[in-house]
């Protein structure tokens, strides 16, 4: 029983983690919560469905194509909506509101073009879950678990050990000084959004496969966002760990306390963690000197 609870929690957590990564990536770079990420995930789910179900391309190929498409969309999104705000040094709140505008737009675009029907991915795996030690675990959860961990490690290396990563971090603090070093910050940012779009695409397909595809599915990423906050918005490993923590706590509370108050618990925990660690579990702050 407890093992199953834990396994389920980890499974749910893996999905949160996968979605949280995109938030975290953009936050760790631009310091704003990109609420359009949820809408991108939704688009990813639709695009993946298109390729995998309607056109009928093999599943793994569809993931790749989807990731590229959402990557490009995410770059377009940045170029059209965020760049001018960024260049004006607008407060992050402006970017957040713009991101929300984008997500309202995309969601309703889907309503008005594709419609409000649900779609389900075709069966990709012959069996959707595994039995380990008499507890069942979803195959997709296992995949999301590994995909998110691998992505995080790669990203972490990229941002902390590569020259481009360094320039991105520099540009966040001072884009103008960065351009004085010869780096084109806009191009760097384009790369970041391409990456976050790729994550959106991958998580969209996974979400679609795990659950279903519908216009409002972007909103479920709120949970992922909360996971990212628990882990510390700017910290990539934090996103994953936050996802797992949230997943496990939710499951344990549902099973052992009450499913009704589950959210009260997880939100109180969120507040509690923030009170103890104002920047989340792994958030880092660059202390400002006077």
């Amino acid at each position, binding site marked *: 029983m407890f093992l199953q609870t834990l396994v389920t929690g980890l499974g749910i957590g893996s999905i949160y983690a996968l979605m949280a990564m995109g938030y975290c990536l953009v936050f760790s770079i631009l310091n704003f919560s990109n609420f359009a990420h949820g809408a991108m995930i939704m688009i990813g789910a639709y695009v993946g469905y298109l390729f995998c179900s309607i056109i009928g391309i093999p599943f793994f190929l569809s993931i790749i194509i989807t990731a590229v498409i959402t990557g490009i969309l995410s770059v377009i999104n940045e170029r059209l909506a965020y760049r001018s705000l960024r260049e004006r040094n607008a407060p992050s709140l402006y970017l957040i509101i713009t991101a929300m505008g984008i997500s309202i737009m995309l969601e309703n675009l889907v309503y008005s073009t594709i419609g409000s029907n649900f779609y389900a991915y075709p069966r990709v795996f012959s069996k959707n879950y595994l039995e380990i030690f008499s507890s069942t675990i979803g195959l997709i959860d296992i995949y999301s678990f590994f995909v998110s961990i691998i992505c995080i490690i790669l990203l972490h290396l990229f941002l902390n050990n590569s*020259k481009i990563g*360094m*320039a991105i*971090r*520099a540009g*966040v*603090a*001072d884009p*103008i*000084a*960065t*351009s*004085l*070093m*010869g*780096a*084109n910050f806009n191009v760097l940012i384009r790369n970041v959004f391409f990456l976050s779009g790729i994550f959106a695409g991958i998580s969209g397909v996974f979400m679609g496969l795990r659950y279903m595809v519908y216009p409002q599915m972007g909103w479920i990423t709120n949970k992922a966002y909360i996971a990212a906050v628990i882990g510390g918005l700017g910290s990539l490993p934090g996103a994953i760990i936050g996802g797992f923590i949230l997943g496990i706590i939710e499951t344990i509370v549902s099973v052992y306390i009450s499913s009704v108050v589950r959210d009260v618990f997880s939100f109180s925990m969120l507040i509690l963690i923030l009170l103890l660690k104002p920047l989340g579990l792994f958030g880092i702050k*660059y*202390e*400002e*000197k006077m």
Partner: protein
Amino acid sequence: MLTIKDMNVFYGHIHALQGVSIQVNQSEIVSIIGSNGAGKSTLLNSIAGIVKRASGEITFENNPLPTRSYDIVKLGISLVPERRRIFPNLTVNENLKMGAYLRNNQKEVEIDLEEMYRLFPILKKRTKQFGGTLSGGEQQMLTIARGLMSRPKFLMLDEPSLGLAPNLTEEVFLKIEEINQTGITILLVEQNAFKALEIANRAYVLENGKIAFSGIGAKMLDNPKIKDAYLGV
């Protein structure tokens, strides 16, 4: 090497540079002095491409200067900006490496890094510290060192001595002369007008966005008007 003709810059309705023309020759040190708000930083910033010029022509080595700052840097022009624009969220070491962003020869970069640490030993002790937590003077050193890390042909320094201890100021100016002797052209903006004029081959005086005087650096030290207005003697 660098020629500016009749340049105008505006901030909104503030006319910050009004028809400024200057020239910097190969291997020279040229100083620009002027009181607060005269437009000195504006001049350097518009050469570096981080302030848009409304009109005027800049040529560098007989070619028109590109407008984007990251393209300008590629020509070997480096600006040490005013007021310590270090990257607060990068470590000292990373800040310096950012200076060498366009350089690909890792070995040479490492050598230059060591050179910077030799020049500013206190930075060496702080390689892992975030730039933002350095003391004011340490940040200033870091800004200068970062500017040098790109191995520029043409180096612009905006108030390099700001907030530096007297002995260090001395050293920085010695270093500037030393750099210049290796063939790097230098355009210097400095409040310490004595120093600025002393080490300069030529100098310009900016007043309210216009060039008021120009001449041989050392000679200007004796100019009574300049003495009165900028040296306070």
